[in-house]
């Protein structure tokens, strides 16, 4: 079993499922001959043919709409939106059609599609290539939104997404695509959806995060450990529907919580978690919940993106503020 990167794990899961299930097709811009701009679909064209690995015209709305049509006809399309900044037009299709096909036909037609898109900042990319649209997708009824943060979880979540009978948006953290390797068994075992994963157990504070911020938050937890603060770290993994039970149970033990997200703060997904904590976990809290997030600005271009994204220092500072509250 070889250690592979997150992007290689995506590729492994796609190949595994395409070999297992002839109904799985991959479509998107440059996914065929080029193997995807990040190489997520590398080698699939040669192995599975151009009918199932489909280079589409340059039209994101078409890609999403086409996937809906395919899914209603019984295929299991995996659509790639090359960068999430180009994916705002697909929200129309996901919100108005994918998420409600099953409901509006009362189960007559369904939409078992997957829409993958790279997300987040941190790779010195051009404009519109560093977006964090998770809250926009998580607001949509009838779909699932998952956000892997390691090669193993990427493999398992993508398999789960492709086997799910409903639409699943798979957000992929570009900054983690090749940041580290992990051993991934190509055993076809899907991850469990709708569940947070506790990455590290702790007693002093609960750190909640997802996607590209998981790595940074773990680094902050390491730094805190050196100072004797034992933080519990939860990777939300499935943003919609949200497993609040795991977070509430953790906060019931630690009494303190910091939520880390690189998206703009207002109406972000961190706010959703904070609101749930206020509603159902207030009496267990020893201090106000804090959010460490991006700012209510456009994500800056490369020169300033590191100043925008929450980093280890900002997370540690927020944790210290929360711990100091009495």
């Amino acid at each position, binding site marked *: 079993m070889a250690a592979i990167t997150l992007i290689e794990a995506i590729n492994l899961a796609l190949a595994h499922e395409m070999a297992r299930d002839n109904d799985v097709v991959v479509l998107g811009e440059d996914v065929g001959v080029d193997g995807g701009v990040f190489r997520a679909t590398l080698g699939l064209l040669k192995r599975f043919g151009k009918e199932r690995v489909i280079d589409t015209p340059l039209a994101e709305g078409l890609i999403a*709409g086409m996937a809906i049509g395919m899914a209603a006809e019984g295929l299991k399309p995996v659509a790639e939106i090359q960068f999430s900044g180009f994916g705002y037009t697909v929200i*129309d299709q996901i919100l*108005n059609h994918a998420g409600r096909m*099953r*409901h509006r036909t009362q*189960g*007559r037609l369904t939409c078992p599609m997957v829409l993958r898109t790279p997300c987040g900042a941190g790779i010195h990319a051009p404009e519109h290539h560093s977006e964090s649209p998770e809250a926009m997708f998580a607001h949509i009824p009838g779909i699932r939104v998952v956000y892997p943060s390691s090669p193993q979880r990427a493999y398992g979540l993508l398999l789960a997404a492709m086997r799910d009978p409903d639409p699943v948006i798979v957000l992929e953290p570009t900054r983690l695509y090749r940041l580290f390797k992990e051993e991934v068994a190509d055993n076809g075992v899907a991850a469990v959806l709708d569940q947070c994963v506790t990455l590290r157990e702790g007693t002093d504070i609960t750190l909640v995060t997802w996607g590209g911020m998981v790595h940074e938050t773990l680094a902050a937890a390491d730094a805190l450990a050196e100072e004797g603060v034992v933080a519990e770290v939860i990777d939300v993994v499935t943003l919609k529907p949200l*497993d*609040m039970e795991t977070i509430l149970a953790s906060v019931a033990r630690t009494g303190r919580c910091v939520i880390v997200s690189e998206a703009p703060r207002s109406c972000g997904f961190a706010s959703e978690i904070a609101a749930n904590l206020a509603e159902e976990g207030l009496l267990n809290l020893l201090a106000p919940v804090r959010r460490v997030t991006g700012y209510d600005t456009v994500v800056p271009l490369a020169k300033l993106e590191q100043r925008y994204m929450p980093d280890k220092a900002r997370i540690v500072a927020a944790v210290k503020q929360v711990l100091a509250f009495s």
Partner: protein
Amino acid sequence: MPLDWGCVVRGRFPNVNIVARFEIERRQFLDEHGKALAPLPAFAEDAAALVALYRSMVLMRAYDAKAVALQRTGQLGTFAPLIGQEAVNAAIGSAMRPDDVLLMTYRENGAQWMRGVTLRELFLYWSGDERGSNFSGARGDFPICVTIAAQCTHAVGAAYAMKLRKQDRAVVCTLGDGATSKGDFYEGLNAAGVWQLPIVFVVSNNQWAISLPRAHQSACETLAQKAIAGGLPGLQVDGNDVIVLRQVLDEALAKARAGGGPTLIEALTYRLSDHTTADDATRYRSADEVAAAWKLDPVARLRAHLTERGAWDKAREEALLKDCNDTVQTAVRAYLDTPPPRPAQMFDHHYAVWPAVLAKQRAEALGEEI
């Protein structure tokens, strides 16, 4: 006025070549009085086949009038009348095979009914009940697409699936004149051309997109020529002439099934009523215009044609009207007798299984214990 950049100079200079030209044909068999302008296609030589189409069109009109009446008396929600577009509906409904897939707008209830959707289900839909889109017939057809032109991209996906599986099936995707201004229309058309998919796009150009007239929708002389941009053939037909509609649909569907790729048909018709029951078309168009459009009525035209051929008369007309009214009335009773939806219907089909982590929400809404 749009600028005319090139026609004058094209070809006049040695460095300028004409690299593409196009022509758009318009076809018609029956004139406005029902007289044949040309020898009829084979299927129309059989008067019984035309009578069957006529009967469907009259039923549609009876359904349409009843739906408006139900809305006016508070027994139905907002409704989009199809009156004036019966020929397009009948041609689509009769030309498609049961296992083809129809992706339609809200003005194709007639075609839906011909494909097996019951009038009761149509009334249910317009009453605001999702069960109306869980058709007992035409189970593979998409639900009515309300967001304009999105169905053009879904059609591409459905047709791609058929082609991938080498099935002998085709897709019909309907839209209005307004939809041809949308990006989804162009994206769908373009992709259908790239993969030569088995799709027939039918643009019911009824001259009005709510209050916007056709002339303000596009500077193109025809909407059919928009197909050229996608690399597929487009043609215009008289959309109130059911014979020509059936003929071009038959041709386009046969071509699609044979791997010949997509076609766009622009059906020139007219929306004789309001956009919906919530609209008042007198705000933006003249009574004279509507009166002129009534002279082109597709139902009266086919009736005149059949009468001239001796295949129709007053007695048969009266019997048919009674039949249609009875059929519609029976459907109205079945619709009104349908028990209201259970509140759980709001939750039950959002996911294959309502997520456990959202169980509390559902229980709260339904007043249940968890």
